């Protein structure tokens, strides 16, 4: 199957082209099924490739498929080439797997939308781009996908472009991402200048051999991190992600939770030898950025009332966890968390989509409540997702989060504490969300009249095509942890560290690094501590929102996201815009003014000189005479006498 590697991106690309050509004729729901099938084909091929690789011994789990020479100029030889190795196939597996589920979901969700086929057009293009991103053999192919997903994200966020907020959000996402792209590009330039290639193989090889100076490696790593910050919505560039919730919910699930936003983590993992070769403070910066983002976003999520906004900030927070892992050297944990996060966050986004669908486009949680009765499947699956993200064992999230915290403690206790606090907050705000949406009294009845002309408003459960993906994802959220079980005594040896072993050729073995540290020795107690934290967070939320024992603390400052977004907007719209305007005026008045000034000067000088031409012949004689005297002075005095 390895030679069919090209099929993985090709299938969604084919879907894109087919829908582009025949989309309108196919119509609903054929276009949706076509798109979903294409992604499913891709998934099937990926699975095939996965098993092929699995069949090889761990040093031969790498396959490069060169399609054609893309940008060959002198030393710079960049191929359009795909790389199948454990990391890329892991990514591809959950991209295509979750992707096909979400496609399926979207068929139901987008029912009745006039631009139904166009939605799947974009979705397929996105999957293609995302696959190019992860399968790329070199930075440039990755960058192709990287920008491609950015563009698709832009299309999809502003899918309902007649809404100004959607259009603005799409633009914001693109531009903010571009700031990150600046870093990726510079990293490529620096890499090429140093190594003479932008292929991962060459770059990482050079880094491993120690051929790259520490400063250069630091530069490359941090520049890539700038890109990752943009793509994965970390501080200070996370702004676009909450706004991106303007897009249809499947988009939020696929792009802004499961796949695209993890690209930054993927890239850092892919280039981990470079990070290893970098100065010590480089990973620290990454870890701190991740930790602060995790805490910061979690604190904002506590006060959000929009069902999707909570999930969006939660995503930012969880991505922060992943960077915390990367910065702590826990690449496997990062990937592990990325996978489990993909499961449960996709699940919850789809669940929220189902809720929104059932609530006729209502997103405000304050107008929900007690939905578990109306939407039992949605509620059930959502609760599984909740338990997973909150870190309750044995759900998937517990295992991955625990592994990250373990590594974090090994590198920095302070970061560990931040991680723990974030974990408590996560459990708290997720519980809050579940309680507000699915439990308590039904607040939607009182607002029924707001929703259209229906005499009676009743939330309804979604169709099976939407529920099926929820169920599958719920299952994965429960058992997802098995791919990387820790070496606790109660877990059979053969079940431990599956992911780590699989990823081994790409990423240095995880726990071996911290083996012998006190953190490693206390790992069981740490797990217990994590469980306690999760439960206490849940308990707190129940006390506040379930039992009403405590008053809810939802300061406006947090609801406004620490006013960071508003501040940036104020700056861009205020001084920033004024500065741009000033430059535009400078161009018109000074630069162009100088040119027109010359013209004016010519005209005014001419006008003045012109007055000498009085029309009076005597004054002409005077001018001529004066000229004669001057010429005579030159000849007689200057040339003759002197």
């Amino acid at each position, binding site marked *: 199957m390895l030679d069919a590697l090209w099929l993985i991106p090709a299938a969604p690309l084919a879907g894109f082209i087919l829908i582009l050509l025949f989309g309108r004729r196919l119509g609903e729901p054929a276009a949706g099924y076509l798109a979903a099938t294409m992604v499913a084909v891709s998934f099937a091929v990926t699975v095939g490739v996965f098993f092929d690789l699995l069949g090889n011994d761990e040093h031969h789990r790498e396959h490069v498929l060169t399609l054609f020479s*893309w940008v060959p100029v002198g030393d*710079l030889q960049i191929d359009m080439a795909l790389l199948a190795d454990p990391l890329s196939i892991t990514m591809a597996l959950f991209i295509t797997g979750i992707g096909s589920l979400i496609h399926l979901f979207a068929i139901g969700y987008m029912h009745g939308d006039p631009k139904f086929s166009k939605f799947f057009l974009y979705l397929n293009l996105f999957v293609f781009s995302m696959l190019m991103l992860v399968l790329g053999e070199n930075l*440039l192919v990755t960058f*192709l996908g990287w920008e*491609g997903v950015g563009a698709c994200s832009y299309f999809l966020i502003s899918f309902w472009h*007649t809404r100004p907020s959607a259009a603005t959000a799409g633009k914001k996402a693109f531009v903010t991402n571009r700031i990150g792209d*600046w870093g990726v590009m510079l990293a490529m330039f620096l890499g090429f200048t*140093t190594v*003479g290639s932008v292929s991962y193989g060459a770059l990482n090889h050079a880094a491993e051999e120690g051929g790259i100076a520490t400063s250069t490696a630091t530069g490359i790593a941090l520049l890539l991190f700038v890109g990752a910050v943009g793509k994965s919505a970390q501080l200070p560039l996370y702004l676009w992600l909450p706004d991106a919730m303007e897009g249809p919910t499947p988009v939020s699930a696929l792009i802004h939770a499961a796949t695209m936003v993890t690209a930054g983590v993927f890239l850092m993992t892919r280039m981990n030898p470079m990070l290893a070769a970098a100065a010590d403070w480089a990973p620290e910066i990454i870890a701190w950025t991740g930790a602060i983002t995790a805490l910061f976003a979690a604190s904002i999520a506590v006060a959000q009332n929009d069902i999707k906004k909570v999930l969006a900030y939660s995503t930012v927070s969880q991505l922060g966890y992943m960077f915390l892992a990367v910065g702590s050297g826990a690449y496997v944990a990062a990937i592990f968390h990325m996978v489990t996060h993909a499961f449960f966050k996709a699940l919850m986004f789809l669940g929220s989509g189902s809720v929104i669908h059932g609530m006729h486009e209502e997103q405000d949680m304050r107008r929900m409540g007690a939905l578990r009765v109306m939407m039992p499947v949605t509620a059930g699956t959502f609760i599984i997702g909740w338990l997973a993200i909150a870190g309750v064992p044995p759900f998937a999230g517990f295992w991955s989060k625990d592994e990250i915290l373990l590594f974090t403690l090994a590198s920095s206790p302070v970061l560990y504490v931040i991680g723990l606090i974030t974990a408590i907050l996560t459990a708290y705000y997720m519980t809050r969300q579940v309680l507000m949406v699915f439990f308590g009294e039904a607040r939607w009845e009182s607002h029924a009249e707001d929703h259209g002309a229906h005499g009676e408003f009743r939330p309804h459960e979604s169709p099976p095509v939407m529920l099926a993906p929820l169920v599958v994802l719920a299952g994965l959220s429960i058992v997802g942890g098995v791919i990387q079980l820790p070496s606790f005594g109660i877990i059979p040896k053969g079940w431990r560290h599956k992911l780590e072993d699989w990823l081994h050729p790409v990423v240095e073995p995880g726990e071996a690094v911290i083996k012998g540290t006190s953190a490693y020795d206390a790992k069981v107690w740490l797990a217990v501590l994590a469980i306690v934290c999760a439960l206490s967070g849940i308990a707190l939320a129940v006390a506040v929102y379930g039992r009403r024992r405590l008053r809810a603390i939802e300061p406006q400052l947090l609801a406004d996201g620490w006013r960071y977004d508003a501040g940036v907007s104020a700056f861009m719209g205020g001084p920033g815009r004024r500065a741009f305007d000033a430059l535009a005026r400078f161009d018109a008045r000074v*630069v162009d003014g100088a040119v027109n000034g010359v013209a004016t000067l010519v005209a005014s000088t001419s006008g003045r000189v012109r007055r000498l031409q009085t029309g009076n012949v005597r004054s002409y004689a005077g001018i001529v005479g004066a000229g004669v005297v001057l010429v005579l002075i030159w000849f007689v005095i200057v040339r003759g006498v002197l």
Partner: protein
Amino acid sequence: MVAATGSALAFPLLSMLVFIPAVGALAVTLMPRRRPEYAKLTAAVASVATGALTVWATQAFDTADDGFQFVSRHPWIEAWGISWHLGVDGISLFLVLLTGLLFPLAILGIDPHNDDPARDKPYFAWLLLLEAGVMGSFISLDLFLFFVFFEIVLVPMYFLIGGWGYEGRVYAATKFFLYTMVGSAFMLVSILATVFIARNNGLGYVTFDLVELANEAEFAASTGRWLFFGFAVAFAVKVPVFPLHTWLPDAHTQAPTAGSVVLAGVMLKLGTYGMLRFGLYLFPEAAYWSRYLWLTLATIGIIYGAIAATMQKDLKRLVAYSSVAHLGFIVLGTFAFTTQAITGSVIQMVNHGVSTGALFLMVGMIYERRHTRQIAELNGIQKVAPIFAAAFMVVMLSSIGVPGLNGFVGEFLVLIGSFATARWWVVIAATGVILAALYLLWAYQRVFHGEPDEENATFRELRWGEAMVILPFLAAIFFAGLYPKPMLDRIEPAVDALVERVAEHTDFEIPTPTIAGEDDR
């Protein structure tokens, strides 16, 4: 057919590229006044024939040869050592191709909207004359000949802007004409000085032949720098390099659509092309010596053009300022002196021609429908004309430089190539990529997104005829973005030779990666 390389071809291919449009222009002029449709037909035939020849030339081009091909050389004004010397190499080939393909599209696809059909005749005649001039500039290998074509181009462009432009056309046309002529004034003196100084310093005879001058003449460093300066001023105006750019927004905005397309598509490249062909090639020392100046101006241009574009209220003006920024990349690459950077510059010249040409084309279509180019008066077009919007989006993304589309390849090569020799300039210039997204997306949002108001609700969707004009642009955008290799293969040898020439004449060392790019795949 075997491509003749470095020697004369039995068929005077390149001369035909000049003569066919020139004769076409004459023929159009002589058409009967009552039958304006003949004018368009003649123009179309002439431009398509020229285009076909350029395609043939591209196909027959020998990728292994770094010298001039399809050379045609005949004495012209022997008294002054001037010959009719034409040839193409990798640097000029695609500009010739672009010229050859852009003009038929402009002639066939863009309606000049003459209220008086009699005005079709001069319109097409000027366009063909313009094609002859531009084509000649790109293939001239004689300084005099180049200057002649470089200057002659002004006249038809002047009349096209002045005669078929918008409100402020006369001002814009005049500004364009005078601005460029000031630059040319310096170039003319420089050309002459080059020739005479070369004669006095060993060459022994007067010749305007580029190749002879480049190979035989030696200039003292200080002399070369002055001479280079003369050339550079003319090219800097034409490019235009900040701060000599202010003619461009006016000219672009006021020009008729075909004029804008051609102006942005090929005419600006006369400057960047000239910089490579005459600046770097003749005066490598001076070019290298002055590189920081150019790098800085280019970088300023990139940022400055982008910021100025952001604040424009007129869509066409916005695109015009975006040209300032894009051309900045070309200049940046030119003065980075690495193979990748200069190849990138050449590619970018072509790509900018395609994408900005297409942008102007579509802005023209917007104007045609709405009779306004003010961004504030446009909104919600995507809802009523989704296909038009989609095409615009693709072109815009190409202009933004999204990988996979043509705009990226050039920018990327320029930046990656320049990084080794002009690191900090690249760091700043790369931020232009962010700004490009900012101003174009902002404009796109305001024009295409949202709910259309009453006036925009009847915006007409793309017609088949219009689509046929845009389609080639889109095809080129995707092709050059995904498979630029055929272009790169043809461009690279000539660029390599140029870079080596610079290295030979200066203490410039062609940068090599500190770690040999060993391949461990």
